[in-house]
């Protein structure tokens, strides 16, 4: 199970308290998972504002579905799944193709090579949607192909093929640039 640093410090009973209607406990859940949810959407769209909108919709949906969440592990799975689906649905709905380079902001803590990191995020945001979500879940969330297949409902072999193609495409684009 890949918990984020913030999620690891989450009190064990926060989910139960949130389900009982405790708004502070729900705020704890948002605080623990907001970076993961926002980052999935940000790395998918390459746009902070759109990513924030999608992340907000995800937490609103979580609020409505809180009673169906069985555990902290289930919550993490649910958030990854709903965020991934929302990103793809949103893209298909709005037919977002262009990526604003200005919107691809640098992280708060610089990556080992900020220029390369920026270039990579730009290239990822240009991958076909299925490859993009698979790469983001693989390298942002450090998930294996089986977990990605489970979350995205994409067959395992297709996940592996998306990863392979995406890496080949990224490698080629980096060499050309």
């Amino acid at each position, binding site marked *: 199970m890949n918990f984020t640093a913030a999620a690891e410090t989450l009190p064990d009973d926060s989910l139960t308290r949130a389900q009982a209607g405790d*708004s502070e406990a729900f705020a704890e859940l*948002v605080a623990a998972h*907001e970076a993961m949810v926002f980052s999935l959407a940000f790395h998918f769209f390459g746009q902070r504002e759109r*990513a924030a909108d999608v992340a907000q919709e995800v937490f609103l949906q979580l609020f409505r579905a809180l009673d169906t969440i069985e555990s902290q592990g289930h919550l993490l799975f649910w958030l990854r799944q709903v965020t991934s689906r929302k990103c793809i649905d949103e893209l298909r709905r709005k037919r977002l193709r262009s990526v604003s380079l200005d919107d691809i902001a640098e992280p708060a803590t610089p990556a080992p*090579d900020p220029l390369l*990191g920026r270039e990579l*995020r730009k290239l990822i945001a240009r991958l076909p949607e299925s490859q993009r979500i698979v790469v983001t879940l*693989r*390298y942002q969330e450090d998930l294996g192909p089986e977990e990605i297949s489970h979350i995205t409902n994409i067959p395992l072999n297709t996940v592996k093929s998306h990863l392979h193609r995406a*890496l080949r495409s990224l490698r080629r684009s980096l060499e050309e640039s």
Partner: protein
Amino acid sequence: MNLESQLRAALRHKQPPAGFRESALAATRRQPRLRPAWRAIAAAALLTLLAGGTTARWVEERREGQRAKEQVLTALRITTDKLRDTRETIHEASNH
């Protein structure tokens, strides 16, 4: 650093914009959440309404059917009376 390590570094978690959490929580406050017990009560109330509506319609249809049947019987009765009168008139005429 190989490509996979570079991707992990490039795709590290980022914090959402300032004010994100407040905005997300405010959105949930505008959406009252139905507790499971209330959902069950609401579903039961809806079912009762639907069942009540169906029963009322069935009773009304039966009532209309009954009215139609009575109208047909009255029409038959009138026709029978008319036929009897006509037959008697013919019978009287043929006896004279």
